[in-house]
């Protein structure tokens, strides 16, 4: 048998078709250029996700923004075929609407994960297969490493760039097909490669925030999509006192300290809980923010052994992308929900964010943090869970 090429296929690069998801940014452009340099049959696809004009409240245009133009020019320069695929409808349904609904439910969503799960690794995945591709490559900073039991997902070499948090929901079938050419590189090296390979976006600034929310004004976007979310309500202290009013739960996230209008309080107050049903924002001192146990839904497991069951599995985990990893135990029910019991209480466990499990650099999976300690989807072995965490 011949040796495998750098993408893991037993054939020469020119006979290996790799579809690259090109956003028009530096990273995916360099990923495409690297693969082209290595001789692969590279095809670029850029997703049209939303009407740039409509989002920025300028005139509605059929035309794409600068990013599609940039992606096309990079592909021209590399000399590779490039196409725009229209996922506006599915992006609206699966990402933008869900993002708004999540805020309305009092959560703080991570739309980039929703996008990876749907338009990128479902629709673009299918498009790549339709084009006869052997693999789909993206510019994510994350590593896919062949292990004894198949491909594993690992944190990027550059810790400041690692995007593994956003890819926890990648399924095994997806992991089998996707490639991440940049996972082993540091960002400055990627920029340098961009210069070297003539990728003219090499100096382009990194994209920030959420692509469809101009200027980071989430509340404005949610209000436009779900006007009812701007319902006024009360700010209530955990001790039961009403301490003020607010212009809608969408302006708050768990752990938030600013904008509560609670000047006269003895100690700093934080958002502890959001109750969208009554439009109440519950605030309290830092101590009230601490939680040791919470539920997950939409759990994905990528470990070699069976997914955690009632006996629990100790893992390292991140509760936000920028979170310093902490330790705890996951108790699964085998049906997509789980309960996490942390070794130490943690502040601001935020519904809507992902809880991502790691073992060293390896991503073992994760799940979405559910609202409310009261509704506990996982009841099995909680007693043991409590014991284990003691």
């Amino acid at each position, binding site marked *: 048998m011949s040796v495998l090429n750098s993408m893991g296929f037993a054939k020469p690069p020119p006979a290996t078709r790799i579809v690259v998801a090109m956003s028009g940014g530096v990273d995916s452009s360099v990923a495409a250029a690297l693969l082209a340099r290595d001789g692969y049959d590279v*095809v670029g696809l*850029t997703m*049209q996700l939303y009407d740039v004009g409509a989002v920025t409240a300028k005139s509605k245009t*059929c*035309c*794409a923004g600068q990013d*599609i133009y940039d992606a*096309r020019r990079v592909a021209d320069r590399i000399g590779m*075929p490039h*196409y*725009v*695929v*229209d996922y506006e409808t599915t992006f609206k349904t699966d990402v933008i609407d869900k993002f708004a609904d999540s805020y309305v439910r009092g959560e703080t969503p991570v739309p980039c994960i929703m996008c990876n799960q749907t338009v990128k690794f479902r629709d673009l995945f299918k*498009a790549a297969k*339709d*084009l*006869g591709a052997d693999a789909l490559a993206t510019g994510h900073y994350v590593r896919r490493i062949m292990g004894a039991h198949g491909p594993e997902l690992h944190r990027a070499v550059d810790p400041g760039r690692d995007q593994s948090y956003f890819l926890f929901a990648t399924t095994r079938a997806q992991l089998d097909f996707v490639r991440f050419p940049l996972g082993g590189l540091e960002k400055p090296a990627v920029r340098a490669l961009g210069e070297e390979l003539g990728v003219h976006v090499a100096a382009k600034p990194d994209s920030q925030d959420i692509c469809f929310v101009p200027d980071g004004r989430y509340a404005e976007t949610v209000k436009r999509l779900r006007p009812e979310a701007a319902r006024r309500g009360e700010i209530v202290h955990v001790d039961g006192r009403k301490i003020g009013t607010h212009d809608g739960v969408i302006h708050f996230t768990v752990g938030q300290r600013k904008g509560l209008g609670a000047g006269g309080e003895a100690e700093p107050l934080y958002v502890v809980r959001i109750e969208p049903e009554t439009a109440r924002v519950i605030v309290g001192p830092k101590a009230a923010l601490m939680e040791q146990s919470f539920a997950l839904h939409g759990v994905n497991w990528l470990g070699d052994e069976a997914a955690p069951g009632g006996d629990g599995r100790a893992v390292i985990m991140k509760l936000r992308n920028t979170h310093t990893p902490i330790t705890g135990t996951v108790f699964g029910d085998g049906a997509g929900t789980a309960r996490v019991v942390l070794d130490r209480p943690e502040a601001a466990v935020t519904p809507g964010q992902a809880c991502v499990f790691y073992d060293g650099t390896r991503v073992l999976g994760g799940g979405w943090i559910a609202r409310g300690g009261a509704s506990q989807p996982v009841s099995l072995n909680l007693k043991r869970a409590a014991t284990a965490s003691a």
Partner: protein
Amino acid sequence: MTAPVSYLDYNASAPLLPEAAAAMTATFALMGNPSSVHRAGRAARAVIEDAREAVAALVNVTPAQVVFTSGATEANGLALVTGPVTASAVEHPSVLAWAEAETIGVDADGVIDLPALDNRLREFPPAVVALMLANNETGVLQPVVDAAALAHGCGARLHCDAVQGPGRVAVDFQALGADTLSLSAHKFGGPKGVGALILRPGLELPAVIKGGGQERRRRSGTENLAGIAGFGAAALTAGAALKDAPRIAAVRDAFEARLADQAPQARVLGQGAARLCNTSCIMLPGVSAETQLMRLDLANVLVSAGSACSSGKIAPSHVLTAMGASEADFKCAIRVSFGPGSTAADLDTFFSAWMPLALTAAA
């Protein structure tokens, strides 16, 4: 890598004819401005007037009726700017841009509803009726002669966008009964960026681009000499190329026969109507046009779908929508358009790249 390319997108643009390329190249040696009095100016002027005669002959008019423009979009604008314009629902966007929002519908094969046009004209007579000679997406021919009679009956002009006609069907301005007609050079082997508006004798329309008074004050600006020379050369060839139309029709018909045989679930849109000899608009249920186009392109087969906007994404086709196609349908339609360079070998290339999609969808 120089794999053979099957170019099956003549309705978007035809390859430049060698005659046109030669005529254009020759103009690069001409230093004069066509408006200059001296010999260099006269030499350039002669090139333009030779081309004007060739274009006039192509559509059976006198040279004085030909106004050179930057293309059919500009010609359509010149003809329609004075409005109000009643147009068919399947016109090109450069016509619809000037038309009343309520257009005249078409039947399931894409032919204009003449009784509906008649009713509209009686109720709200416009200044201009716009009806294309042949549709760019389906190749369906329109009853321009009948529409012209209806238009004239209510005192309106008839404008005909005849861009898809030359080289494929006889374009006789007089026989059509049109008052204005637009042409584009690159659809039949001329260069891109040049076209013409044909005017009925005696009809004067306001100039939009004003200045030096070129083109009998109808369109100012120093003439696109190379483009016009290429246009003229292509017009000479296109007139003669009409005899090639039956051969092109045979290729197209063989294509559709093979389609019916190998992918019976596919449909040819507009097949029930009289069509251009070269166009097939085919719909493969369950496979998006996007996917078909990419897959074909990667196999060196070049076709189009609907009207691609500048982002490259495929916008819903207003033509197929007007024909009653559902969104699921028109998202799966592509246009295959043949030309003088097309042969049976192109069909083999097409089907070897396209059949896997049809078989996957059928499975």
